């Protein structure tokens, strides 16, 4: 089953974030715990680790704003 990559709430007042970049290419292999993507919220950039291992399928686009809970991609 595909594992959904969900935009987390990290920080007390964060409700949304600008998606900065994927650190792995679409279709690439990811490992749980390795840096997966970067977001910008509350004026600071944060790298988020991969929540699972598998093949990455990308939805989120750099420069776009997403809400906490939005699905950024999946890991098959």
């Amino acid at each position, binding site marked *: 089953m595909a594992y959904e*990559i*969900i*935009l*987390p*709430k*990290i*920080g*007390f007042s*964060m409700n949304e974030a600008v998606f900065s970049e994927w650190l792995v290419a679409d279709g690439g292999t990811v490992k749980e715990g390795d840096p997966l993507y970067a977001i910008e919220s509350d004026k*600071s950039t*944060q790298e*988020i*680790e991969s*929540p699972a291992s598998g093949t990455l399928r990308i939805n989120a686009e750099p420069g776009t704003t997403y809400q*906490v*809970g939005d699905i950024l991609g999946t890991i098959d």
Partner: protein
Amino acid sequence: MSNYPKPDAATLVKIYEKMELIRQNDERAHKVVKAGRIIMPYYSPRGQEVIPSAISVSLTAQDYICTIYRGTHDMLAKGVPLKLLWAELAGRVTGTCKGKGGPMHITHPETGVMVTTGVVGSSMPIANGLAWASQLSGDGRVTIANFGDGAANIGAFHESLNMAALWKLPVIFVCQNNRYAEHTTFANSTAVERIGDRAASYGMPGITIDGNDPDVMYGAAKIAIDRARAGEGPTLIEAMTYRFNGHLLGDDGHYMDKEERQRAIAADPVARLRKRLIDEGALSEADAVRIETDISAQLDEAIEFALQSEYPALDEIRRDVFAHELA
């Protein structure tokens, strides 16, 4: 401190098991929040594992603790059930407070976790109330009031210590000095070098110790607990420790002294005790691995249980607020 009671090998293993549970629990909390599976404010207790672990081995299940938002270590050491804890963190109806308290308000009287508070400084007067009730009823309980270095500068600290000393309440004030209150260093907020010294103002014993040393922490806590239980009154323990992370998840702690932080993390008390127990033959490598995998499996189960549970229904929101339901 050389005359302190020392934990035997079996007690040290118990302390280690609690510390490893706290460490892994913290790792999971970071992971689950960053995976977007649970939305919660999370204040990591990483680095402060020794304090509640070395205290709670001298407590009974009936004894009380009061803790703060940075308190999962205190709760886990006291024995809060993992599944109920995680369900409450996730705001689910199966949690310790039916999902209505959340991470900042975990309460589980069955294991003596009486309050978790987000109001800095409020664990102390609440602990006094519990200890006073024990004194009046003669139930023999002691109460541990946990709080931070920042909280020691709140008025309620001074009021509580005075009253507890005056009435010889069975309470132990444990200041977990992790060197920071949000972004402010201890040195930038406090005129005295040691909070432990303040006990003299209230006529109670006070001590400042290395809270990351399990022998010293165990000994100081044991003396204070025995004293409180014997009706001799309160003790102030300032346990020096270090906050490995920023104030809460999402704060990278960029304002923290890099070298000091690296030194503290390199001296990780959990890894240090594991190594010592193996070196001293109290634990084999296989035993240690078994403890670790057991805890990991329990956490899998607890998190799964939490995520599978329902959120409370909307009409629950006004229930449990007053002893008698308002129409």
